């Protein structure tokens, strides 16, 4: 039995050390693969999640920044958020809905929030571009912030162009595109 216990402990240590927890995301995206081998940095990431229909969701990894960004976003749009609402927002892994609906959204119980979130998304078109505001405010909060776009591989380019334009307009010209590594067999069959 000792041997078995040894093995399990070893496996457990391996998993604990090498893995990272899966983040809860409102939509499932399959990211395209590339040969790029640069790893994404651990912290200071603002992730822009784009689903195949072009809906945009955001996530920030620092909770303190998140609270500040929401407060300022509220001020900009004439909405004041209570402490309670800010605390609730702090714990959301991913957010993305028009700022006008945010107050009602935060009042919902957690189980219902997910369903609402899926059909929402940050408005990001020429008439109402809240994505710009979010990114700009997050940048003010944290100057080391890096922007990463995680988009589904079948997202039409039109939507991507829209997001890239929005980022360009606020002078965010350097950003990361999240991809998965092309497996060796993939790359080799391509070479042949």
């Amino acid at each position, binding site marked *: *039995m*000792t041997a*078995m*216990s040894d093995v*399990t*402990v070893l*496996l*457990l240590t391996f*998993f*604990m050390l*090498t*893995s*990272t*927890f*899966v983040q809860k995301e409102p939509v499932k995206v399959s*990211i*395209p*693969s*590339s*040969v*790029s*081998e*640069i*790893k*994404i940095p651990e912290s200071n990431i603002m992730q822009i999640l*784009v689903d195949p229909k072009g809906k945009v969701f955001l996530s920030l990894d620092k909770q303190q920044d998140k609270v500040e960004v929401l407060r300022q976003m509220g001020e900009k749009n004439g909405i004041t958020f209570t402490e309670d609402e800010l605390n609730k927002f702090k714990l959301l892994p991913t957010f993305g809905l028009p700022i006008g609906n945010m107050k009602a959204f935060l009042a919902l119980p957690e189980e219902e929030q997910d369903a609402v979130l899926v059909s929402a998304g940050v408005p990001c078109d020429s008439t109402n571009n809240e994505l710009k505001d979010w990114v700009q405010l997050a940048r003010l909060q944290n100057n080391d912030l890096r922007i*990463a776009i*995680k*988009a*589904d*591989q*079948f*997202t*039409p*380019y*039109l939507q*991507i*162009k829209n997001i*890239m*334009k929005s*980022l*360009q*307009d606020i*002078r965010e*010209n*350097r*950003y*990361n*595109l*999240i*991809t*998965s*590594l*092309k497996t060796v067999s993939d790359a080799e069959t*391509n*070479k*042949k």
Partner: protein
Amino acid sequence: MAEIQQNEKGGKKGKTKKLSIHIDFTPMVDMNMLLITFFMLCTSLNKPQTMEISMPTSDTVTEEEQNKVKASKAITILLGPEDKIYYYFGIPDYNNYNSLHLTTYAADGLRSVLLQRNAEVVTKVEELKQKKLAENMSEEEFTKQMTEIKKSKTSPVIMIKATDDSNYKNLIDALDEMHICSISQYAIVDIEESDKFLIKNHETAGELTKNIDNSKIK
């Protein structure tokens, strides 16, 4: 859980008592298995990769500030719908639909064209990689020499123009090809009407060219 058995038989003076300890490991193994299962289900092993890109600013650039690319060095890649990819060298001939070439994302498609165009740099990069393996070159030195090579004046300048019907994967694939073919100068540019015309013209095998009023263009 654990028990100690004392061997009472040979209990003579001066001899040490034999103790055999039995610990039941089953609950511990159970718990470990449970934890392993938890970690396997709730975590991901591989961290996603990332591609770093820098886009040009949207500030309007005056005609003088723009650096013009030599037509002989320029390659324009058009990402069409349904995973189609077109390319043309320099300035396309609007009268001849064959100046636009249709190709694929496979290795014998776009990549072979780019590798051929960028042959000088590619061979140098390969040499450098060999040298690195042979001489145990430091990573810093390697990247320094690599950037030196990529500055080469003969390497082509690529413009990637994606149509609205292409998808994100096409864009990533195209950027990937740049990476594979060691091309340092490339940009994602907005598509223009003339490019859309070229694609349409190619699809209809030159139908549109007939409609060009040649008397107007001079």
